[in-house]
């Protein structure tokens, strides 16, 4: 029997440990879909190790903020991830941090990322930062409305209560969950810089968003930034998987329940990752000007979820 805080700590450590694996898995599936053999699923770990070993250079126009940013971005993202139940539900972190804190921490990370992008003063950094802010300013309302929809069903903004409520109900067809799911998927794609909003594999200067801000980073700074991006993808994946398909998550801190929880989340993430890879293979990246329409759809879905919760599910 692990203590609750020990469990929370273990789970927080599991996130950075597993995040590169998820990325590797997505890349592997994508490669297979493109009829390539692709790199090993462990390649992201090797990339990170290589980057950590390399010399870290900083542009001479950079301010101290530039050096500080990777740590802030990584820590904020990591903290945000730690509040999302991974293998067990009833964590003490859920008591002190709810969905709004999660959105706030992600906002903090994004703020520093954008500042760092602009800090050196290159064109690409500024362009990437402005685009990132445009995307996120549109994605954040959608995300908030979507999580409020969930919170309204559960009468709580704490993620573990939402999951617990959903588990207690058993299988219920909720129109609002369907819409919120759609909205969160779209937001996740936009926020973690995946196709069709951003292309994670390109350095083609005119289309990049996330890469644009990282161009000046090297060595361990870059490693931290990359790991933060991996974490963010995994965070969204776990959020979607555990909120909408909570079955299997550990309800107690017993080893059997935890093992089941770990197996379940790995399976769910594998399925989600494969779905992401398929989606990215089938769909083309859209022009940046279309991104607002894409995110408007997310907001619309989220609003519809909220409305259908109020109209259809509450019952006058």
């Amino acid at each position: 029997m692990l203590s609750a805080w020990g469990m929370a700590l273990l789970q927080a450590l599991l996130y950075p440990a597993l995040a590169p694996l998820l990325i590797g898995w997505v890349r592997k599936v994508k490669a297979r879909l493109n009829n390539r053999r692709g790199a090993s699923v462990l390649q992201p770990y090797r990339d990170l190790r290589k980057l950590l070993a390399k010399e870290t250079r900083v542009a001479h126009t950079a301010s101290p903020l530039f050096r500080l940013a990777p740590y802030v971005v990584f820590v904020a993202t990591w903290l945000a991830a730690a509040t999302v139940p991974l293998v067990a539900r009833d964590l003490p972190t859920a008591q002190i941090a709810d969905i709004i804190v999660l959105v706030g921490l992600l906002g903090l990370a994004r703020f520093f990322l954008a500042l760092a992008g602009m800090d050196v003063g290159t064109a690409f950094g500024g362009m990437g930062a402005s685009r990132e802010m445009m995307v996120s300013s549109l994605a954040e309302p959608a995300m908030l409305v979507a999580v409020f929809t969930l919170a309204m069903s559960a009468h709580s903004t704490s993620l573990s209560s939402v999951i617990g409520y959903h588990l207690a109900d058993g299988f219920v067809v909720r129109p609002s969950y369907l819409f919120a799911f759609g909205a969160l998927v779209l937001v996740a794609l936009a926020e973690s810089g995946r196709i069709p909003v951003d292309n994670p594999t390109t350095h083609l200067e005119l289309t990049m968003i996330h890469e644009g801000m990282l161009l000046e980073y090297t060595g361990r700074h870059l490693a931290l930034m990359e790991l933060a991006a991996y974490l963010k993808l995994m965070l969204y994946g776990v959020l979607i998987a555990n909120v909408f398909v909570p079955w299997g998550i550990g309800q107690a801190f017993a080893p059997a329940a935890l093992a089941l929880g770990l197996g379940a989340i790995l399976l769910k993430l594998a399925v989600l990752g494969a779905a992401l890879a398929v989606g990215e293979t089938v769909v083309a990246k859209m022009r940046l000007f279309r991104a607002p329409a894409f995110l408007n759809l997310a907001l619309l879905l989220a609003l519809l979820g909220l409305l259908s919760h109020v109209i259809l599910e509450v019952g006058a």
Partner: protein
Amino acid sequence: MSLTQLPLLEQFVLLQAALVLFLSFGLLSQTRLLAAIHAFAWQGALIAAVTLTVAIAGHAHHLYFSALLTLALKAMLIPWMLHRLVRRLALERHTETLSHPALVSMAAVALVIFSYWVVVPIVAEELTFTRNIVAVSLAVVLIGLLMLVARQQAVAQVLGFMSMENGLFLAAVSATAGMPLVVELGVAFDVLVAMVLFGVFFFQIRDSIDSLDVDRLNRLTETEEETP
């Protein structure tokens, strides 16, 4: 009565109704005509599905016929006619530029809230599980109305008009478990005749202004001197 106490079949009715509403939004913002016609056909099919599910869940046998009628008319015949008209008018690749798409979507959201506000006193009555759908059906009607206002293309306007009728079918099913047969047939007949007439009008409009952009139909104003 909350959602969790409903049988699964009745939960599915709510889900289908929510999807009908979503398709209304889809229709509203879909700029390609053929895709919009398909969305409309799906909406009709979903309403037929709602009718069928209500019929099964509520053991209302006369609704089976109603579901069949809706499916034949709204999901097959009218979309097919529109499809054929669009091909004959060579509009398959027509895309419309919407002015203020986000504003229109938000207006539609406001209409959903408004319909809920209107309907709340009604659904407070004792009523079966379909009561919550009344608000959705009113919203579908009003969004169809919004589409008539927001769109300039004649075919898109007709889609808005027809989706209003979809909302009315949904209202009849959800509030009253179906209208009397004679009325239902009469309404279906009117809708069909209206569709035929719309087809005639597409050609008349095209002959008179060389386009189906009805915004260009602006000769009749209050005070302008009429051209001889």
